[in-house]
């Protein structure tokens, strides 16, 4: 193989409180798929956002075709032929495929005023044909599947004549059939001589699609390997930085503890079908599955009545009707959403204003807020949970992810809920803080709370759960207890699609 | 079967009768659409009263509308378009902005619709006749009386209500022109309060502060006058500064009766409404009318406000 088409040398980037990328070098050759792997927060996405102009580097250099280039914004990157296909796709749902692809560079008729939709559509079809794909250029993007939308993004990138494509977790929400299709497209791009950066933590996939693999850990470069020579175990070891010994939760002593929450035949739209389960006081129940398996929807149906159509919910043995969060909270259920910044916190308000938010009746009389009482409680929670903030009067938006999560937790501990549902509790939280959150989960369970933890990170599930439920396509497909809990079994259940369940599971 | 047919025929007859009677009634009378500058203000309601009186006398049908606010140019244009869609024989209009309706009115005229301007009127090119108070003349009349009250010497402030409506501007221009003939009298400040009582009150108050030696304040409509009246009362200067007003209302009449407002100009809105419809009817009948019909204006104060020729022109 020849020289690298693009090289990033000694790149550094810091965010307040974090060294996201620390002196990392990385490069891709033309006609190569170079995978970038690492745990969440290892700095892969940040590194690629620097390359694609979303962030500017603090130091280091970027060399394209043996010439140093300066990338300060997305436009610069595009002009150099570098395009990133983001996890959150940047398409306009109300426009058609062709309109999206040519957005901002619309084809015009001779008058230069009237848009030439026909030409756009024809060119769209041609672009797809080059990848051996069919397309309806007039389909509205909002109606397409995630996989089809991803193709739109890829084709759009090709129309910029992009030489370097960065794909960030492209298979995160694809079915296995769709993944195959995507790989075909990626191989076609490769043959076309384009350089592809492939970020993923689905290691099995990398074996199939990549030529080289670079591992990052905690913002630092670890190693670059040829895929043929790399073993999965070795890669995992490099990612984690230690022998992979899976700390497992000690099994739950089922001494007939009280059933804290029982759900029977819960239905809420396509994503929650006939879900039944229970969790006991002192137990940590893990909810595993792929993204989009219906776990968050199940939690929201229980907590907020979202989409609820049928099913029974019992809290502490008593049947409850839940139409909205207020009913759930009254019954003693708490929910810590995955997207805590969007759903869990009033970011512009202080720690002391967020913590009592769910229990203002405790901290007010006749509508007047009892500030001293509220502050005393906030200080107490700050101590108990070790919330690191200069003062409880600090605005929540200035806290780190881990401490924000603790504020949300403090809100529910203040309310003294018996059942606590954590949705991806450590998402976007750095490794040190993760351990603290795990410790807290254990402590809460020991105090007799029933914990439900939704997580897409298997190590986390393995480490924390007493018992694991696996969901796939809106159904619970498996239950694992104690020694049965392992990565392979979970993955098996997680891909146990309804139609395949009948027979031909491989 | 036969009975069914009978019932059907009866029902149809009844329905056509119900519908036909008003339609026929409408068709018989010529229709004049009137569009005023505003609607809520009493002045327009008085114009409307006069117009309705004339409509009854001459046997025509009129509609009378206007935007809630005397700045809503768009709204007024829409009203004009809607009115034209109803195929009137004549349009009578007081345009907020003569330019923005000129084109539409020219088209209407080309289709043979009679166009009469009233009050602020419409552009000269578009109108067959204009029925209005001569606002410049009204301003001059106010100035004459102001000069008389000041004994040809003193300082004057003006509170206007609009810088865009023709008649509002003319009331101020006429006043300034006439005052210029008196070398001993000076106009020291002109401010505009949109005819809003509160704003005009604040303006009057600051005027007395900025020009402590001001002798007289001239206001160009009812809102400005009542506002200034309230403002001057709040700073306790109503007896020190002469206030001259325009138009009338219950509040103004009270002020004039006690002498706190020294006098005001009144137009003849009822007459304006009447003469507008009259002119339109004459034009429809092919008669000649003057291109400008002045409906007159009068000075009134405590001494003559109950006189026979003034009292009917004042409204509450």
């Amino acid at each position, binding site marked *: 193989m020849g020289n690298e088409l693009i090289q990033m040398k000694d790149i550094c980037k810091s965010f307040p409180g974090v060294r996201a990328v620390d002196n990392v070098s990385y490069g891709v050759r033309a006609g190569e798929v170079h995978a970038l792997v690492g745990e969440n927060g290892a700095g892969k996405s940040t590194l690629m956002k620097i390359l694609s102009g979303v962030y500017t580097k603090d130091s280091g250099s970027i060399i394209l075709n043996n010439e140093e280039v300066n990338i300060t914004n997305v436009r610069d990157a595009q002009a150099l032929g570098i395009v990133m296909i983001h996890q959150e796709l940047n398409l306009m749902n109300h426009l058609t495929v062709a309109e999206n692809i040519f957005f901002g560079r619309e084809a015009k008729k001779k008058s230069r005023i009237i848009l030439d939709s026909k030409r756009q559509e024809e060119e769209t079809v041609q672009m797809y044909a080059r990848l051996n794909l069919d397309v309806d250029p007039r389909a509205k993007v909002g109606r397409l599947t995630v996989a089809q939308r991803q193709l739109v993004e890829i084709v759009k990138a090709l129309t910029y004549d992009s030489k370097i494509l960065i794909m960030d977790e492209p298979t995160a929400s694809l079915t296995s059939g769709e993944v195959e299709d995507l790989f075909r497209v990626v191989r076609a791009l490769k043959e076309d001589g384009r350089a592809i950066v492939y970020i993923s933590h689905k290691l099995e996939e990398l074996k199939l699609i990549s030529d080289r693999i670079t591992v990052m850990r905690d913002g630092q470069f670890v190693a670059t390997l040829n895929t043929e020579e790399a073993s999965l175990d070795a890669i995992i070891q490099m990612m984690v930085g230690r022998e992979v010994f899976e700390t497992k939760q000690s099994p739950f002593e089922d001494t007939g503890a009280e059933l804290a929450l029982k759900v029977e035949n819960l239905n809420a739209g396509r994503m929650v079908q006939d879900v039944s389960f229970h969790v006991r006081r002192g137990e940590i129940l893990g909810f595993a599955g792929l993204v989009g398996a219906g776990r968050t929807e199940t939690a929201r149906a229980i907590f907020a009545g979202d989409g609820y159509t049928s099913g029974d919910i019992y809290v502490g043995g008593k049947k409850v009707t839940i139409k909205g969060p207020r009913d759930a909270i009254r019954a003693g259920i708490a929910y810590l959403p995955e997207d805590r910044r969007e759903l*869990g916190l*009033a970011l512009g*308000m202080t720690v002391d204003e967020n913590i009592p938010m769910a229990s203002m009746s405790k901290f007010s009389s006749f509508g007047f807020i009892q500030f001293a009482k509220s502050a005393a409680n906030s200080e107490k929670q700050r101590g108990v949970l070790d919330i690191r903030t200069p003062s409880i009067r600090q605005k929540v938006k200035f806290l780190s992810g881990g401490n924000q999560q603790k504020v949300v937790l403090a809100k529910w501990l203040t309310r003294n809920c018996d059942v606590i549902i954590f949705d991806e509790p450590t998402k976007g939280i750095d490794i040190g803080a993760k351990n603290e959150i795990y410790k807290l989960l254990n402590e809460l369970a020991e105090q007799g709370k029933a914990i439900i933890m939704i997580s897409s990170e298997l190590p986390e599930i393995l480490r924390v759960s007493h018992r694991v439920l696996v969901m796939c396509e809106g159904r619970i497909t498996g239950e694992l207890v104690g020694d049965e809990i392992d990565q392979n079994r979970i993955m098996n259940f997680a891909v146990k699609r309804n139609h395949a369940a009948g027979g031909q599971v491989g | 079967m036969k009975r069914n047919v009978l019932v059907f025929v009866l029902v149809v007859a009844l329905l056509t009768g119900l519908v036909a009677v008003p339609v026929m009634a409408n068709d018989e009378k010529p229709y004049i659409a009137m569009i005023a500058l505003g609607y809520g203000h009493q002045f327009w309601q008085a114009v409307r009263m006069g117009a309705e009186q004339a409509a009854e006398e001459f046997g025509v049908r009129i509609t009378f509308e206007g935007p809630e606010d005397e700045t809503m140019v768009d709204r007024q244009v829409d009203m004009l378009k809607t009115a034209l869609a109803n195929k009137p024989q004549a349009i009578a209009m007081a345009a907020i902005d003569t330019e923005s309706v000129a084109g539409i009115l020219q088209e209407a005229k080309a289709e043979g619709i009679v166009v009469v301007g009233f009050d602020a009127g419409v552009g000269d090119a578009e109108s067959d006749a204009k029925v209005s108070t001569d606002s410049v003349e009204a301003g001059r009349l106010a100035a004459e009386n102001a000069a008389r009250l000041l004994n040809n010497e003193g300082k004057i402030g003006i509170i206007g209500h609009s810088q865009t409506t023709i008649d509002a501007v003319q009331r101020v221009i006429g006043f300034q022109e006439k005052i210029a003939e008196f070398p001993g009298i000076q106009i020291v400040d002109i401010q505009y309060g949109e005819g*809003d009582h509160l704003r005009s009150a604040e303006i009057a108050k*600051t005027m007395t502060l900025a020009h402590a030696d001001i002798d007289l304040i001239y206001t160009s409509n009812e809102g400005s006058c009542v506002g200034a009246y309230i403002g001057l009362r709040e700073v306790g200067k109503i007896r020190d500064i002469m206030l001259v007003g325009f138009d009338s209302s219950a509040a103004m009449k009270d002020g004039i009766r006690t002498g706190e407002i020294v006098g005001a100009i009144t137009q003849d809105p009822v007459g304006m409404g009447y003469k507008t419809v009259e002119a339109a009817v004459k034009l429809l009948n092919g008669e000649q009318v003057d291109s400008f019909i002045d409906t007159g204006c009068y000075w009134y104060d405590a001494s003559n406000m109950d006189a026979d020729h003034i009292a009917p022109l004042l409204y509450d």
Partner: protein
Amino acid sequence: MTQTKTLGKRLTGTEFSHKLIIIAVLVLLVVFFYIMNPNYLSYGNIMTILLATCVNGMLALGVSFVIFTGGIDISVGAVMTFSSVMSGVALTRWGFPLPAAILFGILVGGFCGAVSGIGVTKMFLPPFIATMAMQMITKGLSLVVSNMRPIYFTSEPVYQRIATGSFLGISGFHNAIVILIAVTIIAYILFSKTLIGRYSLAIGSNEEAARLSGVNVDRWKIGIYALGGLFAGVGGLIMSSRLGSAQPQLGVGYELEAIAAAVIGGSSLSGGEGSIPGTIIGALIISSLTNGLRIMSVPTELQSAFVGIVLAFAVYFDQMRKKR
């Protein structure tokens, strides 16, 4: 771009809070106008400025709470007029005793606000649309109910004294000013000491988080819009008392001036930010500025331009402060 950024940084600094900035603006304005005309700071003119702040200040206080929630209320001007007309009707036509008529008028304001709130929460209307509808409805009803004529309170001399009398016995210190101060204090207490303030900011900051915390967002929102209406009702009382009449066609454009006061005072139209002291200072800035420009005999058309410039810069500095 970088230049404007550093300019903003230098001017706003780390320690500067928005409140300090606008207090500085107010002081600068006052000093400037005082130099131009020493009469500006005479007792009489200070009272004039305060009195001129009353109606707008009252509306701005009410609309502030709505803005804190991330909403907007463009009906406050029309609702103010409507409540004064209704209290006039109650007094002169239905023979209500004076206190009952006043209370009725204010409650009408609160009712209108509550209806807007119901439109926003239960009918899912965007706040702009719900309150625009309310603006049009109350504007129309004011004209219909009053037969398009002013309703005079001349038979009730006490009514006029509500705003322009002085129960403190200090000449020039009108009751309206006392009422404004009292209402400001009440608004401040509601804002900083009670759940209304806490929840209005929380809803504006993150409505879904508030809902998921078990806050009855709909009920609070309706209450907050109703509160805005009540303030508009009090504004209507002061205005009609000063005028000695309820003027059904008045109130046009008052809502925008009220919103401007809240925004100058540091409220963010996207919600979750702002304060009552800020709003009242914002209202004072507008009335001091207009008063000063009038005293300098600046032409009317330029006065409005100056207020616009102050508004733009107040928000600009705030944006720069936040960008840091």
